[in-house]
Structure formats: C-alpha cells, structure tokens
C-alpha cells in the first residue's frame, strides 16, 4: 500500500500540480486520490475539535444504507418480470430462480446506475474545473438515488437528461453541493414526471424484452395506479370490488406483500422493510435525523387515519398503516426527507417539516388521481418551505428570550 502511495505522490502528482502538463485535470486526480487515501492536510489555524467523519464518509454511509433497497430492487424487478411472463406464479417459493431474477434485475439497473453516475459526475467535473474547486462528493448519493426512484423500463437517455437537468438546474446554479434548495434526485424525477408523463406516471410499469408476451391479468399496475381508478366512486361499491380484493390478505397488494415489497413499482422503493433497514443504519451512525423520520411517519399516519375515518372512496378507505406501505412513502421518508441540506435545520423546524411532508404525501396521493404518488411532490414542496419554517422557529425563539430578558430586567 505504501509503495502505491509513494508511486502516486512522487510520479503522478507532479503532472497534475501547478505547472504540470495535466494541470487542468487536477480536480479529477484530486478526487480520485482522496477517495483512496485520507487527505494529508491538517487544520492550519487555531485548534478545532474535529470529528473524523467528513463528507466523503457521510456519503459512503448513506450509500451503504441504500444497499438493502438496491439489492431487493434488483431481485424484485426480476421477480415481477418472471411473474409477468408467467414463468412463475405467486405460489412459487420466492427463492426459486434466485440468480435469474438477480441477473435480469442487474441487467436493468447497472445501465441506469452507469448513466446516472456518468452524466452526473461528468457535469460535476466540468463545474469543478470552471469554478476551480475540488470535486464535491455530493453526487455520490444522488447518483445512487436517481436509478432507485425510476421505473425499470425507463429509457436511458431520459435518465441521462433528467440527471443533467437536476445537477445543473437543481444544484449547480445555486452554487453546488450543500447550496441546493431542492433534493437533486427528486428534481430529476420531477423533471421526468412532467417531461415524459406517459413513461413515469406510475400507472403501468411492465417491462420486458421485445417480443415477450405477458400473461392475462399481468397488468404491471402499481397499487396506487389501481386505487386511483376508484376515485369518484363510492366506497365499497360493487364496481370496485375487483380492485378492493387485490388488497386483502393473500392477494398481490396485501399488507405483508407491500411491507416486504413484492409488488411492481420504482426500482428501490417497493420494500418498506429494506427502507427500514436503511433507516436503522442511518440512525445508528447519526446521519439521518430521527426527528424528520418520526414526524414524517406521524404526519402520514395522521392523514391516512383521517382519510380512513371518512372513507369517501376506496382509496381513502385503505387501513392507515397499509396506506403508508404503498408506493415510495418509506423510501422518501428515509432517504429523501432526511437530506440534511434541503431539510429544515432547527430541531423544532425538523418536526414541522417532517409532519407536513408526510401529511401532504398522503393528501396529494389520495386527492389527485393525476399524481398517483404524492411523496415526491410533498418533499419538494417542503424543501421549498424549509427555510421559511426555520426562519419562524428562530424568530419565535428570539421573541421568547427577549420576553424573558425583559421580565428579568
């Protein structure tokens, strides 16, 4: 290892430093170098208490937390595909054909990952070069998140375009990593959602090779795509009986199926279980805020409970916990809402931010059939509101303390 370090420092580094031939590629060299080795520089002025965790390690932790979702998503794509073409049925043991499922899933996910990282990091490199700062690690997480919130059958060029849009308009115009107002991955998804609505509307996600024939009844619709059809029809009416029956125990969208994630949907978001494992990792290493996660869940549950109480249609009538298992609620809660840059910064603010995020997620999903999933919109909306929430939290604190000061005086 030492020999390698010596070789890099003595032989390679001079080419990239000031005066070297490859000076313009310094940012590239620097970022790859610090990936492999801890940067050698120390604090120059004064003493600071320093935590060993820097941005790179934070990002690596988040990526580790996402691995359960990634692995499960890979398997699930293959699983849904084989179900779709009738190779297996819902009665087949889940572990059957494990490797062919993983293989099929990987053949879909790896290109998405490559495109997302390639485009995103490419743009980061260009901006780092123009602005003459070292490359930030901010995109490592976004680049992983973007494929996980895409449907499996999305075209690669669309993902590339959306990534470019999100990195440039969502992040770089505001000044780069740590300056963005909106969550980058969600910006990419929102871009696709409005630009190519037929591809990402969340109603039907059935993918396969050309020439595959799908068995009858395999519509590939997501749970919420089905439920959106019940809006405008009275609850428990006979017309929606086929849809209701999909949500009973033992059916495709039963509570446990949705908890584990055995349903069609975006790649990484179907499994609440995998998201919870990720949440546990993030909370253990202290990266995600428990306040955001808890209040997000509480907000979603409160709204789902209110809807369940009134139950004007079958979508509203879903059991509160079952409602939360659907779609990307858990994924958004664990990986998107907790984004430390775009969330509220004050402790009270985090509670308010999370609560309304969860509340709006369920409200948008149920009230607006054009948006079968409301989590994306709700989190982006709360991202925009976060600075205002913080402002009022701080102002009220100042007022409180001023009052106390006045009394004491």
């Amino acid at each position: 290892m030492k020999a390698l370090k010596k070789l890099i420092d003595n032989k390679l580094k001079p080419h990239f430093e000031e005066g070297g031939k490859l000076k313009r590629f310094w940012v590239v060299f620097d970022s790859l170098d610090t990936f492999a080795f801890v940067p050698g520089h120390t604090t120059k002025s004064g003493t600071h208490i320093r935590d060993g965790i820097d941005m790179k390690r934070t990002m690596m932790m988040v990526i580790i937390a996402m691995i359960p979702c990634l692995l499960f998503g890979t398997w699930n794509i293959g699983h849904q595909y084989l179900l779709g073409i009738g190779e297996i049925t819902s009665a087949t043991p889940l572990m059957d054909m494990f490797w062919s499922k993983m293989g099929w899933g990987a053949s879909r996910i790896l290109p998405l990952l490559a495109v997302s990282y390639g485009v995103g990091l490419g743009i980061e490199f260009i901006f780092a070069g123009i602005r003459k700062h070292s490359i930030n690690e901010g995109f490592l997480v976004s680049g992983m998140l973007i494929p996980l919130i895409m449907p499996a059958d999305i075209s690669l060029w669309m993902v590339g375009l959306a990534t470019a849009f999100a990195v440039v308009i969502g992040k770089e115009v505001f000044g780069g990593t740590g300056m963005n107002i909106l969550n980058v991955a969600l910006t990419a998804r929102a871009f696709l959602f409005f630009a190519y609505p037929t591809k990402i509307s969340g109603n039907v996600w059935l993918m396969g090779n050309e020439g595959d024939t799908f068995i009858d009844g395999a519509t590939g619709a997501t749970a919420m795509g089905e439920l959106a059809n019940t809006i405008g029809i009275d609850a428990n009416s006979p017309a929606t009986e086929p849809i209701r029956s999909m949500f009973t125990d033992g059916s495709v969208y039963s509570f446990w199926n949705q908890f584990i994630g055995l349903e069609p949907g975006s790649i990484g978001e179907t499994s609440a279980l995998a998201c919870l494992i990720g949440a546990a990792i993030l909370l253990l290493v202290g990266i995600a805020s428990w306040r955001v996660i808890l209040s997000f869940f509480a907000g979603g549950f409160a709204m789902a409970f209110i809807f369940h109480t009134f139950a004007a249609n079958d979508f509203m009538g879903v059991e509160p916990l079952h409602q939360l298992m659907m779609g990307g609620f858990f994924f958004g809660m664990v990986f998107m809402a907790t984004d430390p840059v775009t969330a509220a910064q004050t402790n009270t603010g985090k509670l308010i931010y999370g609560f309304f995020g969860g509340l709006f997620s369920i409200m948008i999903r149920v009230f607006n059939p054009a948006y079968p999933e409301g989590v994306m919109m709700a989190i982006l909306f709360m991202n925009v509101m976060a600075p205002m929430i913080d402002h009022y939290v701080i102002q009220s604190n100042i007022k409180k303390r001023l009052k106390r000061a006045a009394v004491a005086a």
Partner: protein
Amino acid sequence: MSTETQELQAVKKESLFSKKNKRLVTDPLSDNNPITIQVLGICSALAITVQIQQAIMMSLSVLFVLIGANVIVSLLRKVIPDRIRIIVQLVIVASLVIIVNEVLKAYAPDISEKLSVFVGLIITNCIIMGRLEAFALANKPGPSMMDAIGNGIGYAWILLAVAIVREIFGSGTINLEGLGIGKFQLFPEAFYEMGYMNNNLMILPPMALIVVGVIIWIQRSRNKALIEEH
C-alpha cells in the same frame, strides 16, 4: 440667459442618430434588457412562448404599442397634468392595444385566438408603463422613439430565444402556419420510433421561467458588471 443659449445649442447639435441616442437602442438589447436585467414583462414571456409564431406576433404588438405610446406621451409631456398622468398614459396605451387587437383579429385570426387575453394584457405590461414613466415623460419624441425601439427589440429577442427552445424541444416542430409560411417537422419519424419523445415540460410555463433564468445566467457570467456585490 446663458443657460437658455446652452440648451438651444444642445438642441441643435443633438441629431437623432447621435452616439447618445444610439445607446438608447443598444443598451436595452443586453446590458439593460427589460426582461433579463430589469425583470419586467415576465408574465407575457412565460405565457406566450410555447410557439415561435405567437412570440413573433406578441413582440411586434408590444413594439408597436411601445413606440406609439412613447412618442405620443412624449409629445404631450408638457400638457399632461402631473397628478393624472398615469390615467392619461393608460388611455393612450389602451387605445393602441385595441387597435393592435383588432388588426390581429382581422389579419391573423389563428394567432389572435392563441394569444387570447395576452394582447389585451399589453396594457398592463410593466415594460410599457416603465418606459413611459421613466423616459417618455422627460424626453423629446425623437429619443423616446429610439428608447421604445431599443426596449421593444430587447423584449422581442428574449421572447424569440425562449420560444425557439420551447417549440423545438416541446413540440418538435416549427409551426409558422399563422404567418402563412407553413409547418416544419424538425425530427424525422425514425427518431420517434427509436424512442425519442417531445419534452412535455417545455410546454409548461415553469420551463419558460427556467429558460429565461438560463439566459440571465449566461448573460451575467459574461458581463461581470452585472454581478451584484453581496
């Protein structure tokens, strides 16, 4: 006495195409653009830039109204009582807008329909009121006309630039049927068969805001004088 003679001399020397007057036309094109620098007239820039033909018609209408209003107000600037000047300006602008609207209805009914209320809303276009208040009320008709031409063209080129981006990527065509030229398909069918799709976001108003934002971004990064200190 001496000041009067100076003024008279100045009047004699100042020709319509003097350097100062030329700057009245060139400044609003970039350094003092009504849309990207003064951020006026944004609403119409967002609303009618889905198609190039609409942007062209809108620009021409605004240019006509702006020149007419600036010249008329400038001619009347000594007669208009200060207290009711806004009302007088509104009457002048409104009359011109009605003329434009009727002409459009008669000769370009398709575009007129698509522009719908936005022709009428030229009355409230901040650029026009802004130029009347800031320039025409205090200057002679000649410079006022130059100022109007500069601002009108400054408005027009931003509109056109936004409309070109939005129509090409949003609809994949350049539709000039309303101007009697015809419709051009930009991307061959084979493109669409390979999976290319028109970008629906481009048709929605938010994208116009983003395109205008990108133009402002490029402009500011090229012209350091425009960057504010913080």
